[in-house]
């Protein structure tokens, strides 16, 4: 397997949507290729970091304003 073939299947490997046979092939490539191993590990880490860190805080008071707007709309319509 070439690195380009490995990269084409990187997402499927990360998302765990490869067949056991394909996974075995990918792992064989990984054992020989430090480059692809770094890509796999750091791409996984990239996703994990973005998932676990809140980068935009919900502004204070926004929920109250929204609630008030919904109640106002509700009085008219329900």
């Amino acid at each position, binding site marked *: 397997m070439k690195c380009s073939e490995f990269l084409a299947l990187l997402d499927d490997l990360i998302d765990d949507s490869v067949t056991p046979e394909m996974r075995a092939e990918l792992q064989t490539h990984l054992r020989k290729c430090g480059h692809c191993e*770094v890509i796999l590990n750091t*791409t996984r880490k990239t996703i994990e*970091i973005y998932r676990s860190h809140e980068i935009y805080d919900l502004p204070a008071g926004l929920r109250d304003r*929204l609630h008030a707007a919904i109640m106002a709309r509700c009085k008219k319509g329900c």
Partner: protein
Amino acid sequence: MSTIQLIAGELEPHPDVALVARVRGGDVSAYDTLVRKYERQIFRIAQHITQNREDAEDVMQDAFLKAYEKLDQFQGNSKFYTWLVRIAVNESLMRLRKRRTGKMVSIDEDIETEEGSVQRDLADWAPDPEQNFNQAELAEILRKTIQGLPQGFRIVFVLRDVEGLSTEETAETLGLSIPAVKSRLLRARLQLRERLSRYFHRKKGSGETRNKQ
């Protein structure tokens, strides 16, 4: 027949179904529950697309109001959350169009056509690299990095990897084909990885931390 039974047997009703039914029956407090459940996600999505705090606040409010008003049109064949995300994405794109005074804005904007390439001289990252930064520094790095992605990559990454939509749901929400979502997701992940490497790479010879100021 057996297929239908199988599907019916596999699916449990999503908790939102009962909440939506209560709202339809006139119980506004049930809608408050839905708002509290999804407000952060909707605000984040709006902020990622509009890249503007005020616009994101307006989009969040408009999206929840619109969903409330259109609840009768919600078919229930998709999840309430996915339906809500679709409204928020459309509201965000409309807001961008207004800001850019009529210039066409779509999720295809800024998409490069050439295949993404990956550098050969890769440096591995430090272990738990985020721990070398305080929370504010890290948030700034993550914001700057994702803002640098083309819009069409950024939104696919956000919906798929941050907000947890499936590939199919992301495709449906954005009006893209599944192969298009997959291709954008791969390139978004690789570009983010490469950009974050500037901050997170392992220092030669040290094996661990970067100097903090």
